């Protein structure tokens, strides 16, 4: 009994500050935590400085979109955009954009090419994952899987080089098919009607294996007991695929679809820049390549290019925020 009485005050002494701590002002509590985690804050702060310089730093340059940028005067020194009469016309670059035939073409191409890639390319990894899942031989399955990821790690420059070697009419594989098997004598890299097809197919070829990982992981997560129960009920493989596998995969498919719709304003600059050429600008010039030429090749109109980039970034930002918001509503997938 005496021992217990002795214990009581010490227990209170331990509990009391914790209770009082809750009553401490928020500021004081934060200060205390800062003190405890000062090292962590220093570590994070060190990296945050980098974020501010290299990722937030460029944002002051967005002012250029509303200015008449000159290298001599710099971003802040340059004059604001004026119209011919000398009145302030901050959005001149943006109104010019929507009167520019080449820009509108790039804008349209961006949506058409990304849309085609999504429409045709989206089901490919799903079908691939479903079929691969039906392969019983583990080694063979693993081999196919590993090899299918491989193209994803090769840069578009190298892939473009490989495609140029294969499609070359003089010495390439396709040249062989033309000469000996009567295939049409076409240089696909400059042939307008099929160029978008070439972009879509090569993009699917590079990405389908890699995109299938997420589906294969989801397939692995489906409870095996469901299949056993279905087997006892007399379901064949087709029935099992329809009634167990597909419903199990559905949430992942929906999320991937929504996330990919969010990236439709973006263009695959590395792919298109390394494959296209003047003859196919009409069908393949996208916002990214157009902006590049406007600033480093055909002209050096930095204000205008900044405006184009700002427009594209804002559009894709809005789309991604919307799609991410939708996915995080539905599931635990998503970025935050």
């Amino acid at each position, binding site marked *: 009994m005496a021992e217990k009485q002795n214990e009581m005050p010490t227990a209170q002494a331990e509990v009391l500050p914790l209770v009082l701590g809750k009553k401490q002002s928020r500021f004081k509590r934060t200060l205390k935590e800062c003190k405890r985690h000062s090292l962590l804050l220093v570590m*994070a702060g060190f990296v945050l400085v980098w974020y501010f310089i290299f990722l937030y730093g*460029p944002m002051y340059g967005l002012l250029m979109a509303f200015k008449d940028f000159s290298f001599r005067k710099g971003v802040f020194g340059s004059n604001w955009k004026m119209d011919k009469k000398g009145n302030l016309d901050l959005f001149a670059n943006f109104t010019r954009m929507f009167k520019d035939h080449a820009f509108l073409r790039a804008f349209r191409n961006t949506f058409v090419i990304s849309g085609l890639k999504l429409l045709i390319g989206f089901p490919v990894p799903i079908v691939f994952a479903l*079929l691969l899942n039906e392969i019983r031989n583990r080694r063979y399955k693993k081999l196919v899987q590993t090899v299918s990821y491989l193209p994803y790690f090769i840069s578009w420059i190298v892939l473009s080089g490989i495609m140029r070697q294969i499609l070359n009419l003089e010495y390439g594989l396709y040249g062989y098919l033309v000469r000996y098997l009567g295939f049409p004598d076409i240089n696909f890299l400059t042939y307008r009607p099929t160029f978008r097809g070439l972009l879509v197919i090569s993009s699917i070829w590079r990405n389908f294996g890699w995109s299938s990982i997420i589906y294969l992981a989801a397939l692995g997560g489906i409870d095996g007991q469901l299949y056993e129960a279905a087997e006892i009920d007399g379901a064949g493989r087709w029935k099992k695929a329809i009634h167990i596998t597909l419903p199990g995969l559905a949430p992942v498919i929906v999320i991937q679809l929504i996330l990919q719709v969010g990236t439709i304003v973006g263009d695959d600059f590395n792919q298109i820049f390394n494959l296209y050429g003047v003859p196919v600008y009409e069908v393949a010039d996208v916002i990214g390549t157009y902006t590049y030429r406007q600033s480093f090749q055909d002209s050096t109109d930095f204000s205008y290019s900044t405006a184009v980039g700002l427009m594209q970034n804002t559009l894709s930002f809005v789309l991604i925020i919307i799609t991410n918001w939708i996915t995080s509503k539905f599931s635990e997938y998503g970025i935050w």
Partner: protein
Amino acid sequence: MLTLIKKRKYRSYLRKSVGEYIFDTLNYIFMLIILIVCVYPFWNVIMQSLTQPRDANKPSLYLWVTDPSLASYRRMLRDADFLRSFLVTFARIAAAWSIGIVMTTFLAYALSRRTLPFRKTITGIVVFTMFFNGGMIPTYILMRDLKLLNNFWVLVLPGLVSTYNMIIMRNYFMSLPVELEESAYIDGANDFTIMSRIYVPLSKPILATVSLWIIVAHWNSWFDNLIYTPMRRDLTGLQLYLNQVLVAGTINVGANPWEYDPMNPNLPVEATLKATIIVISTVPILVFYPFLQKYFVKGIIIGSLKG
């Protein structure tokens, strides 16, 4: 007896129907086609690179080369520009990896601690950059204002931390038991010690994954090289060199014109030289890839789930 009947009955469920046999066979063949489609382009280029100069300008299926020639390999492995571009790429990988992995770990660990003050604010600041950035021209102007143009470090500094990698690593740290931190804290260890002595050694798989992503990103990177270092030919990295030879055609590695010269039968020609360049620059990836690919896969699976 009973068990025997049961067994037989159960086996009948597992027995394949004719339709299933056909499906399985077709499926195996289909996967074989996928294998060929993924591997053949690379095989094609390897065979092309080994072709004799006299045969190189005839189109072929390049299934096999009966009398291989190493002429274009001898030529390219002596090419100063080509070899230097490898050096530049190795240098930028070494610099970016060694600094980047430390910075990524610092931020990822800090953000993985739920008791970190201002955790949400910092996460917000960091994640925002995944969705919105200044864009090509404002970033170029910043590099110019920082006097980094035509400097080696412009290839390293802007890409030190990838937010995506950081989040993968943070999620991994968050999946480790928090009791490790608490008990070490009671023993008097500070945050840095806890991170470097306890959490980092437990996170080797994710460190490998992130390291690989950093290395691949820098191995494949070229656009920064194109726009930020226009006056420095000696800073041309591998991918930019490949772009200039294979795509833009601004560098000519062969004799001019690049045709077969009967007087000089061992002089490599355009087709084999380009194929050789592709092979040499892809070999490092092809060699290490089978051993490392599981780490890449691990990353995408961890990264797709939020902590």
